[in-house]
């Protein structure tokens, strides 16, 4: 099979995956009472109106009294044309809300990803090359700590120690600070640190496990025997064959870990990024915004997977364009 056919097939799969996920989401929504509808009913009852009538009016304005198939078609068309409805709370299109908030998420997610990859791969590679030394044990223990420590608790402990007791860092985020300023970076130190510990730990563990496979490979021994320098061995003979798998992990696991961790961290520190917006949307029963903020990471994950498959073909010349084996 040719490479073009392989990539084309992966693209088709991404489309199909998004289609299934959106359909399932619609199914979930249709099978349950809309949380917003119950709020409407509650409000109507409190104001002395008829709750059932209020729900009916609400459903009519939302078009939920039509046949299911018609609703489904409309839902899917809206989703694919990025017409994701309006947020009740912000009185704006959800896409605008997301466009306004993602920069705050990016301010911690992007630096944290870069640092996590550099440190994680670096330490993992070093650890694998120096297996069963004290440094390796220390690194492994550090990885266990990073994986096991509940992010939200670590964040609170850091706030307690560095915010409340030592008063080195602010305990909550100040939105009035200029985005491109040192002061802004300063108040992102704690959230950045928490997010990075989680990400570094998982990167490190994978990097160590993956590179270990090549530390004792025949070609590494050959290279060492003919006097290649240790640095060159580490990068050309050990790290290079491990990159395809590491890239896979980077994209697939990372989207899950980083986005999920960032969600909680934004809520704790009050950073108005996607996580906090989603959290507030849930608290305020703002269904279109909840849907958008939970589906955006999902779409990113699907695209990330697609990207990873394509990356794989570039990074690993040995790949066969057959199915899974």
């Amino acid at each position: 099979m040719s490479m073009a056919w392989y990539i084309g097939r992966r693209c088709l799969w991404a489309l199909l995956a998004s289609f299934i996920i959106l359909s399932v989401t619609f199914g979930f929504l249709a099978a349950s009472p809309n949380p917003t509808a119950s709020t409407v009913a509650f409000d109507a009852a409190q104001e002395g109106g008829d709750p059932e009538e209020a729900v009916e009016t609400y459903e009519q304005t939302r078009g939920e009294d039509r046949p299911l198939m018609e609703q489904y078609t409309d839902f899917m068309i809206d989703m694919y044309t990025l017409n994701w409805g309006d947020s009740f709370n912000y009185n704006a299109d959800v896409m605008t809300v997301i466009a306004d908030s993602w920069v705050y998420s990016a301010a911690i997610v992007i630096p944290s990803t870069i640092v996590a990859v550099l440190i994680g791969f670096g330490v993992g590679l070093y650890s694998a090359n120096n297996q069963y030394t004290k440094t390796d044990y220390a690194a492994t223990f550090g990885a266990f700590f990073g994986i096991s420590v509940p992010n939200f608790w670590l964040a609170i402990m850091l706030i307690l120690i560095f915010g409340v007791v030592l008063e080195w860092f602010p305990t909550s985020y100040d939105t009035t600070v200029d985005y491109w300023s040192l002061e802004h970076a300063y108040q992102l130190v704690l959230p950045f640190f928490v997010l990075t510990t989680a990400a570094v730990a998982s990167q490190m563990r994978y990097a160590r496990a993956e590179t270990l496979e090549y530390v004792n490979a025949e070609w590494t021994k050959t290279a060492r025997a003919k006097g290649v320098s240790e640095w060159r061995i580490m990068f050309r003979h050990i790290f290079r064959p491990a990159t395809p798998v590491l890239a896979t992990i980077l994209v697939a696991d990372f989207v899950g870990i980083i986005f999920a961790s960032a969600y909680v961290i934004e809520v704790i520190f009050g950073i108005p990024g996607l996580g906090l917006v989603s959290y507030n949307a849930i608290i305020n029963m703002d269904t279109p915004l909840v849907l958008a903020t939970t589906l955006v990471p999902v779409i990113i994950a699907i695209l990330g997977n697609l990207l990873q498959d394509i990356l794989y073909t570039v990074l690993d010349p040995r790949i066969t364009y057959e199915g899974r084996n």
Partner: protein
Amino acid sequence: MATDTSPDRIEIGQIDWEEYETGRFNFDRKTVGSTLSLLAVGLLWLYDFLFVAERHPVLEQDLILFELSLNPNNVDWLFGLTLVALFWYVVVPLYQNKRMTMYYWSKFKQNTAAIWSLGFLAIIFVMGTVGPLIIGHPEPNWGNPNAPPVFFGGEWAHPFGTHRTGEDILEVTITGAQVSLQVGLIATLFSIILASVVGATAAFSGGWIDEVLMRFVDLLMTFPTFFLIVLLVYIYGGSLFLLIVILAFTGWGGTARLVRSEALQRSEESYIQAAEAAGAGKAYIIRRHILPNVSNTIITAATLIIPVMILTEAVLAFLGFGDPNIWSWGRIISDGRNHLATAWWVATIPGIFLFFTVLSFNFLGDALRDALDPRHET
């Protein structure tokens, strides 16, 4: 593998072949016992569901030290079922195969961290299963709010201090241990069952069944589970029962993949061919030959899924999406978060327990993998 290095090898004449010739329907004590006890739990649940009014205890007994009042909800019943299953399928086989158990134990105990973890988890297990029966539900005590823990100006009556509404933090921690155990064990058990069935079926059936099942797993793995759970909790509400169901049905993808690849290797072996030649059906081969031979992988995977389940529940409870009537560790940490300056212990102490529980499961899983799976090299 294991038998080669074990000092006491079995002679062929010692094997009681009768034991292995029981045929399709073998009624040994274990099968009868496990079926009967699982059935008993089911019947008790039916009795509670049909005849005992809600919020009324099934059993009330005044023991001398404390009053035992059992009023289980659905999660408690499922937890009972899980514990019974754990007993019959983990404890009893370990006892029956003493030789293998000792062999694995000798490998396992080389790992000091894992031994400590096992000890800590044993404490948490007793705390979470027996503790709530003794202390009941943590009650607010308005007369004694925000008491600091002992050694920090507090008293031994409340060694971990009290909450701002006067609940004893030790009691809250014990209840939280129960919640974490319930979530960790129940959700893991069900996701492991699902993963084993799907993985083994996919490997052994092949063809389009394999393709469809594994594509579904791909899809599940692509999905950032956290957001799926958030969405489902938003739509359907966050009762503990529902949360466990959601966790069980979203967390099995990776294990299914693992079981499939292991089972694929196993199904190449000649004893499978022999079984096929002897006329064994697919379901029988999967149940009798494939699953027991991949059980090491399954057990290791289970140990590493438990902490993920516990952490996810804690995060959701922390965010306030959990059941507001249940003292989860996540919920008490969230409560303590806004009063760090006045009562640091409320968020700190349950968090330490959560951290060490998760850490212990991770250590345990790692050590188990080293002990049970000699082919795994990390």
